[in-house]
């Protein structure tokens, strides 16, 4: 399946992983930007967000093509390691949240907390409100830098997949902006932990695959091994949710018995 000069059979998993990961990050950024806009005014909130998006775009344009000049096996080993660490961090957190060991992320609660915080930051300036611009810039950069990392890493280690990875991230941005325009409140209906679970699985599978390629291993089934790795990590993760839930329950019971 070819479109825009891209073989989508090869590129679709990369675009999907970039889309899902970006969706999670943009939803988190939207919550804070909405709080800034509601409390400090939309001019500063949108100005800071736009400025950060330009900086992030600049990083992708500068870094993406530069990585394609490094030999592919070195990129796959280095980027695969970072992708694996990033994916394991997300998957571990998603497992612990699913098991009830740590609390789920609550966008509504985050919105309330941020609006209270912003109200305490003094009067709103005429014209460009520096507090709003800097707060929106900071949150968009913090959440966006994770998106940039995923886009650049997935795009370069996959071998020239920067365009499909960028398209996935841009599609997520457009979706979140559209939801923000329609709802004017935090996007709480997106199941953030399920998305993090999925993205963590995909990143672990891609990372492991590329590390294997980088050190010269031959994967049975070629690219199909990525699907097998995803299923393998899913099986482990689902088993771990059960085991962690049972373990946490035992710990609570033994703590209460000791009091």
């Amino acid at each position, binding site marked *: 399946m070819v479109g825009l000069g891209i073989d989508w059979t090869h590129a679709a998993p990369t675009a999907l992983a970039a889309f899902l990961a970006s969706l999670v990050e943009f939803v988190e950024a939207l919550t804070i930007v909405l709080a800034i806009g509601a409390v400090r005014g939309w001019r500063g909130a949108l100005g800071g967000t736009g400025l950060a998006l330009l900086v992030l775009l600049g990083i992708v344009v500068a870094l993406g093509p530069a990585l394609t000049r490094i030999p592919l096996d070195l990129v796959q080993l280095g980027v695969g390691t970072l992708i694996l660490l990033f994916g394991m961090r997300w998957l571990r957190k998603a497992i*612990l949240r699913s098991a009830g060991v740590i609390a789920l992320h609550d966008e509504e609660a985050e919105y309330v907390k941020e609006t209270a915080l912003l109200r305490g930051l003094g009067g709103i300036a005429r014209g460009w409100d520096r507090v709003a611009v800097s707060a929106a810039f900071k949150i968009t950069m913090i959440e966006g830098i994770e998106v940039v990392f995923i886009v650049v890493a997935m795009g370069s280690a996959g071998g020239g997949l920067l365009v499909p990875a960028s398209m996935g991230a841009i599609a997520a941005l457009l979706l979140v902006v559209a939801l923000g325009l329609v709802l004017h409140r935090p996007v709480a209906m997106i199941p953030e932990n399920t998305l993090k679970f999925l993205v963590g699985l995909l990143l672990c599978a891609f990372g492991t695959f590329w590390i294997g390629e980088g050190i010269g291993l031959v*994967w049975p089934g070629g690219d199909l091994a990525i699907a097998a790795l995803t299923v393998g990590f899913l099986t482990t993760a689902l088993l771990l949710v059960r085991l962690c839930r049972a373990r946490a329950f035992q710990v609570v019971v033994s703590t209460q018995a000791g009091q």
Partner: protein
Amino acid sequence: MGWIKTVWTEFVGLFVDDGNLAVAVLLWLGACWSWLPRLGEPSAWPPVILFGVLNLILAESAMRRASERP
């Protein structure tokens, strides 16, 4: 120089929640890099070993966190 520290902390935070998990993964990948390609003829075992130990490292980290007292 404070901003460099902040940027560095944010960057490291992208990859590390549990330091032990990150160190174990890096040590295992280092071992794979130096050892697995020397096994000779391409076979299905090296990829399986790479994948299997990564799952064990993830399991140890998650179970250790679940075992902490609330």
